[in-house]
């Protein structure tokens, strides 16, 4: 059965690149334009992994993670942050919010797929 990934990013080109890379590796992808859109789509369908940007208008990535972790069906779903930020402070906040990993942009499709495969097969 195809595993589904929720890709949350306010940049259209980034979502396009994520979708292209993950679909090429055999995953299904649901796109969301910001944290709130991501949360709405996560409520409609439980996905296998969430990949989210941090800085987005409205609800940011950390707030999305906290909201997802508060939901019963998202307590053990892997969540990865994919962001331009790489500071130790914000990484610690991500970890505290419940993220399982931190990827700094720009991403390499092969390395991204390796990490995703490691987490959800």
């Amino acid at each position, binding site marked *: 059965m195809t595993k589904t990934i929720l890709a949350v990013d306010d*940049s259209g080109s980034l979502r396009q690149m994520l979708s292209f890379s993950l679909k090429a590796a055999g995953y299904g992808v649901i796109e969301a334009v910001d944290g709130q859109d991501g949360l709405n789509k996560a409520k409609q369908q439980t996905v296998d992994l969430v990949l989210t940007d941090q800085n987005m208008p409205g609800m940011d990535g950390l707030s999305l993670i906290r909201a997802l972790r508060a939901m019963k069906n998202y307590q053990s779903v892997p969540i990865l942050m994919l962001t*331009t930020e790489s500071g130790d402070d914000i990484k610690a906040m991500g970890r505290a919010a419940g993220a399982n990993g931190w990827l700094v942009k*720009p*991403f*390499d499709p092969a390395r991204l797929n390796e990490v995703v495969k490691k987490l959800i097969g």
Partner: protein
Amino acid sequence: MLSHESRPDELMNTQVMRLLSGVSVHGDQHLAEVERDLVQMDVLLSEAIKKLCTSFMAIHHAIDLQQETLKGMLSAEKTAPEQAARLEALREEIGRHVGAAVTGLQFQDMTSQLIGRMVQHLAGLRDVFGALGTNGSADLPESGSEEMLAMLSRISDRVGARCTELAGTVRSTVNQRHMESGDIELF
């Protein structure tokens, strides 16, 4: 801190100097941030375009080789297993180059964040200059240095307040100096 015993013209000079100094410092801060982001954008765009050019040239070359291999297969000059292995190697090579191009294509996301930050700084600078306005000459005291001093003090406070507000909202998030793919850390 101004002394009550200072002469009015000394107080006036102090307020004018405080105002000019505030505008100069805050204007300089905003322009320095914009300058920093422009330099960063230039680095990212140059790296991205270089990466995309290299990737597309490499894809073009690999596809040429693939075509030659297919021609060889059709003319049956070599054995099929060798040709199949060659085609598989070329497929992997093309995949690597496409992956590198995907990394390069992400420059738009990072540069758009920098542009957004620059726009906020320019708007902040406009606000600072706007705070200097006195809403027309009707607000200018016609006489009396006390009123003039109070007005200058209010303008300085407004300039300071707008700069403090902006400093809290515009944070730099793009510090990449090259387009190599970023770190991955699993918690």
